[in-house]
């Protein structure tokens, strides 16, 4: 076990540059946000 660093969430965002982009997710401004772009707080719906 690491002494100084504890990993809580393991992401793989950079790898999705080639696997993502299906476009099936919700448009961000259609949910609760009408005045500030908040794409990062959506979830992938794939």
């Amino acid at each position: 076990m690491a002494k100084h660093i504890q990993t809580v969430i393991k992401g793989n965002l950079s790898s999705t540059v080639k696997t993502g982009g299906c476009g099936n997710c919700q448009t961000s401004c259609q949910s609760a946000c009408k005045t500030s772009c908040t794409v990062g707080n959506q979830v992938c719906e794939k």
Partner: protein
Amino acid sequence: MLKIDHYNIAKNVHVFRQGNLNIAYDVNSGSLHIVDDKTAQFIINMIQVQIQDLKGTGDPHSIFRVAGADLSGEEKNEILMELGALQRNNLLFSQEAEKIEPMYPEPPIIKAMCLHVAHDCNLRCRYCFAGTGPFGGSRQLMSFKTGKSALDFLLRNSGNRAQCEVDFFGGEPLLNFDVVKELISYGKKAAAQIGKKIKFTLTTNAVLLNEEVSGYLEEEGISIVLSLDGRKEVNDRMRPYAGGKGSYDRIMPQILRFIEKRPAASRYAIGKYYYVRGTYTRYNMDFYQDVLHMADQGIKRISVEPVVAPPEEEYALREEDLDTVKKSYDILGEKVLEYMQNGKEFSFFHFNAGLDDGPCLPKRLSGCGAGHEYVAISPEGEIYPCHQFVGQEKYKLGSLYEEEKLNAKVVAAFRKAHVYIKEECGSCWARFSCSGGCHAANAAFSGELTKVYSLGCELQKKRLEVAFYIKIREREQRVLV
């Protein structure tokens, strides 16, 4: 051992303290780590040394030596070994994402539409970007004919997307409720005939949200965004009727009655959901109290956003307000956790953080899709990039009643305004979370789509820090349970 040759740490690793935690966010993988005080300071020092190294030689050994001057040799070695292991697994100090600019289909695939069924309103909200309803034009309602043309346009231009989205917007869409009902009925049938679905939402001030309307929306499975600013005095100051009387006493009970029907609404706005959405201004920089007021009433899905306003307005947020507003987000973050622990869970929209389950990089680069995936339709049938651009001739994309092809220059301008093109975003740690900010806010404050609204950036970064903190604490609590 950690490798940092030609690696810009500030751009790719963000270390910050939130609550009682030191957190390291790896920008390219979206991973989160808790780090001890010594590691946090060591990384922060490395960033400082890199920044001061004007020649950019970046000799790793001298950076480690200077940045870790307060560490014993053994401690420094331990930390560098741990960082190195995480780097090899692409979890911290990970490789920069391959810089591939977003690719778009031609012609554009339109999958979402904001339908302005009413450019009129029964309230006179002082901060309204629609000019209290008409968006600088005349007060009018959309006809069924125009609405039908809009839905046909969406279905025709949605390519292979199985699901399209339509938001009834205004002004106040319930002022044109009969047309809304006709359009929902028509849209469902028209979509089904070609094997698609339309997901409808309606954004309302709740003044006309009576039992009959609520029952209809529930039966038809329409998601809903309800406008409310929070405490009575806060709401009524900015959201009065035309005669000046506040709207709180009417809308709060109607909102509470409505949301009772949807106890399981998704915090990520999936399926049939509701969100109660407010705006905070310079008048209520303690907006966390408004969020808590709503939560105390039993509202579970809450979004309160900073006002978009010309800087000369008295209620507009200013640079000097940043510390106060940031403190409000800090307090709110702790309250979200406290309420969760006490069994009174609610979600604050801007504290949702999609990381390991979040959107892919192409989506994060291209953002909201305004102007090429998402359009807004005025009551007259004019097409604009989004609801906030309606009425701005410079950004008009076309008209349902003229040439159907969208203005290629405007489409290209919006497509081009992605994260990699914006100078300020290139080295910002938040670049994959905000998509370079809201186009409308950027255009309003800088006059250009490709220049960011810096105050908005500061607020976004603060919200992200709190969101990441909550994400970690949530995981910890889940483990403890």
